[in-house]
C-alpha cells in the first residue's frame, strides 16, 4: 500500500518527556532535529536560517567590539531569570560597556546526557525572548553533549559583536583624580538571589536577580554628550572587585561613601545572615560610570530618567593614591580599605 510511508517524516522531539542523549551531539539526524526544532525555531532570524557553518553578516563601518562569556550558574532557574536570559544579557552588557552597539550573538551549548528537553526548551525560549527584547539576534551556535556526570545540566557560552560608536573613548585606564563615580542602582541582587535559592533561605520579600540588558541605558548615557571615561558592569566579585580593577588600570585611588551605596533590604538581610559583604556580591544589571566632575550631576539626571537606573547615585570619587587603594567612608564616619576579594566567595554565580 502506498501512502503509509512518509519518506521525509520524522517524529517530532518529545519535549515533554524526552532527555538529551549522546546522539544529540553526534552530528547526525538527532542533532539536526534538535537544532531545527528547538534552537532554530526559537532563535529564528535571517542569519541563522542561512543554515551554514557560520553566519554571513552585513558590512559595518566603524571599529568592532567582541566579547565572550561562559555561564555555569547553579541553579539553572532562579528568581528573576535563568541561565538562558543571563547568557544573553551578560554578553550584551560586556559589549555595551565598551561603548559599542551590540549587533550579533553566538551561542554555544554544552549539554549533559540526561538533561530534560523540557528544561532545555525553557532555557532556549528565555534566550530567544531576551535576544528579541534586546534587538540582538543569535546568529550562529553550536551544541555538544557530554556523558552523564561530566557536566551539570547545561553550560552556555555566548559571544557578542558590536560596533563602536563614533567618538567614544572608554577604557578602564582613563579614570583621573577628581572624577566622580556613579552607580546605576542597588547592589548584590543577582548573587543573593542565586545564593538564597541554593541555601533554601526564605525571606518575607523574595530576592530577585537584576539580570537585564544594559545597552539601551548605555546608549542614552552616551547620547547625552557627557564626558564619560570608564563604564563597567560589576558582575563577579561585585562592586568592590570592579572598582579595584579600574583603580589598578588607571593607577589611582578611590574614596566611596557607604551611605550612597544602595542595597535592597532583603539582600542586606541575607548578606547579614550569611556573613557576606554586598560590595563583593555579583550584579547582572548594574553599571559603574566614571566621568569628569563637572558632568556628574548631568549624568546622574540622565541615568535617573532611564527606567534601568532610577536609583542611580554618585557613590564616590577618584583620588590620587600611589598605592591604588579603594577606600570607603563608613556610615559611622570611619574609613577602611575595600580590598580585592580573597578566595572564592560564591562559586557558580553566573
Amino acid at each position, binding site marked *: 500500500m502506498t501512502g503509509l510511508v512518509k519518506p521525509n517524516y520524522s517524529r517530532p522531539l518529545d519535549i515533554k518527556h524526552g532527555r538529551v542523549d549522546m546522539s544529540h551531539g553526534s552530528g547526525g539526524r538527532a542533532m539536526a532535529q534538535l537544532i531545527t526544532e528547538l534552537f532554530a525555531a526559537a532563535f529564528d532570524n535571517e542569519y541563522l536560517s542561512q543554515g551554514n557553518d557560520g553566519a554571513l553578516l552585513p558590512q559595518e563601518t566603524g571599529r568592532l567590539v567582541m566579547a565572550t562569556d561562559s555561564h555555569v550558574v547553579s541553579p539553572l532557574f532562579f528568581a528573576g531569570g535563568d541561565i538562558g536570559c543571563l547568557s544573553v544579557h551578560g554578553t550584551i552588557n560586556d559589549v555595551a560597556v565598551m561603548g559599542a552597539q551590540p549587533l550579533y550573538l553566538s551561542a554555544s551549548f554544552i549539554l549533559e546526557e540526561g538533561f530534560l528537553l523540557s528544561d532545555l526548551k525553557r532555557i532556549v525560549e528565555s534566550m530567544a525572548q531576551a535576544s528579541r527584547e534586546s534587538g540582538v539576534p543569535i546568529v550562529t551556535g553550536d551544541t555538544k553533549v557530554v556523558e552523564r556526570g561530566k557536566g551539570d545540566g547545561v553550560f552556555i557560552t555566548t559571544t557578542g559583536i558590536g560596533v563602536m560608536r563614533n567618538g567614544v573613548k572608554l577604557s578602564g585606564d582613563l579614570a583621573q583624580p577628581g572624577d566622580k563615580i556613579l552607580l546605576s542602582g542597588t547592589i548584590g541582587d543577582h548573587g543573593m538571589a542565586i545564593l538564597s535559592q541554593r*541555601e533554601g533561605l526564605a525571606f518575607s520579600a523574595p530576592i530577585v536577580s537584576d539580570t537585564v540588558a544594559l545597552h539601551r541605558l548605555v546608549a542614552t548615557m552616551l547620547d547625552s554628550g557627557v564626558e564619560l571615561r570608564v563604564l563597567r558592569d560589576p558582575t563577579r566579585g561585585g562592586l568592590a572587585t570592579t572598582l579595584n580593577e579600574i583603580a589598578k588600570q588607571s593607577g589611582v585611588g578611590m574614596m566611596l561613601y557607604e*551611605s550612597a551605596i544602595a542595597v535592597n*533590604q532583603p539582600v*542586606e*538581610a541575607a548578606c*547579614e545572615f550569611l556573613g557576606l559583604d554586598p560590595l563583593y556580591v555579583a550584579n547582572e544589571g548594574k553599571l559603574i560610570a566614571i566621568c569628569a566632575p563637572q558632568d556628574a550631576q548631568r549624568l546622574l539626571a540622565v541615568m535617573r530618567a532611564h527606567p534601568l537606573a532610577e536609583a542611580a547615585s554618585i557613590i564616590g570619587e577618584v583620588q590620587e*593614591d*600611589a*598605592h591604588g*587603594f579603594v*577606600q*570607603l*567612608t*563608613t*556610615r*559611622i*564616619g*570611619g*574609613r*577602611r*580599605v575595600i*580590598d580585592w576579594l*580573597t*578566595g572564592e566567595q560564591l562559586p557558580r554565580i553566573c
Partner: protein
Amino acid sequence: MKYIDEFRNGKLAKNISANIAREATSLSGYKLMEFCGGHTHAISRYGLVDLLPDHVHLIHGPGCPVCVLPIGRVDQSIFLAREHGVILCTYADTLRVPASDNSSLMRARANGADVRMIYSTQDALKIAREYPDREVVFLAIGFETTTPPTAWAVRQAAFEGLKNFSILCDHVLTPAAMHAILAGESGTALDGFVGPAHVSTIIGSKPYEPFADNYGKPVVIAGFEPLDVMQAILMLVRQINDGRAMVENEFTRAVTREGNLKAKALVDEVFHLRDTFEWRGLGSVPNSALKLRPRFSAFDAELKFGVDYVAVPDNRACECAAILRGQKRPQECKIFGTVCTPDNPVGSCMVSSEGSCAAHYSYGRFRESA
C-alpha cells in the same frame, strides 16, 4: 534593617566618639584588648580607630577560632583525610589554615583528599547518613559559641546509632585564654577588656568576674555592632578613670549573668575538660579545651583512629604568637603584607576575616601608607 541599623547610626557614633574624647583624659593612655575576632572585624570594617583619640589603643586578642588552632591540629585532620580516607568536614575558614609542609585542608583537597566545607554540624550528620560505608569526621573548632551545635550533633549521632560519624574536638574556652593572657607578660600592660559578644550569650557574664575581682581589670561585654563597641569603650574609660574594675554588660539585649542554661547543660552532658591543650600563640594552657566524655568516646576521632596530637612549631618568620598575645601589632611582623597575605597566608592570623592580620590587611593597611 531593624535591630541592626540602630547600632550603625553615624550620628550616635559621633556623640559617643565626642564623649570618649572628652572623658579619656588619663595621660598614661588606655590599653584595651578586644578579645573576640568578631570585635576585631567590626573595628576594622567600620574604621572605628578614626573615631577614637590617639591614646585609646585597641589591642587585638586571640578570640578567633582558626587563629589559635595550632599547626599540629590541622595536620591531624589532613592525616585523617589523606591516610584514612575519611570525609573530613569543617567550617569554611578552617580550610585555609596553614599546616605543615606548606599544606592546608584546601590544598589537601586539591590533591585528592575528600574535604568538605559545611555550614552547620547538621550538614556533617547528613553526609554521614548519605555515605554509610565511609567514615565521616567533623573537625570541630571554635569557642563556646560553636560548641553547643557540636554537642547536639554528637548526641544525635548517638541517638541514631550513626557508627561512621566522629569528631576531632578542638573546642576551646574563652576564660582560660584570658587567664593565660593576664598571667603572661602582656597582661599587666592591659587596662581592660572588651568582652565577647556571642560567647557571652552562652556562658553569661559571670565567668569574667574573676578578671575584675582578682586581676583588677574591668570587662565590658559588648555586641558586635560598631555602636556596641564604641559604647563599651566609653564604659571602660569611665571604669578606668574611676579606678573601678567590674564586669559590665553593654550587650544586655542578648547576654545575661547566667547565660544560656540549656546550651550549657548540653555542653556539660557531652564534653568535659582536657587537662591541657596547645593554642597557637598561647602555648599549652591547662583546662582550656574540651573533649568528649567517656560515654561518647565512640565519636572521638582521636581515639577511633588512634591519631595522637604532635606539636609542630610555627614558621619562624611568623609573628602570630606575639600578635595573638597582644604583644605585637600585625604591621610589626616582617612578612606582613609581603610574604604573608590573605591570598597566601603563612600564619593563621592572616586567614579569617576575624584574624588581626587579615582584618588589618583587608581594611586598614592604608593607614601605614599615609
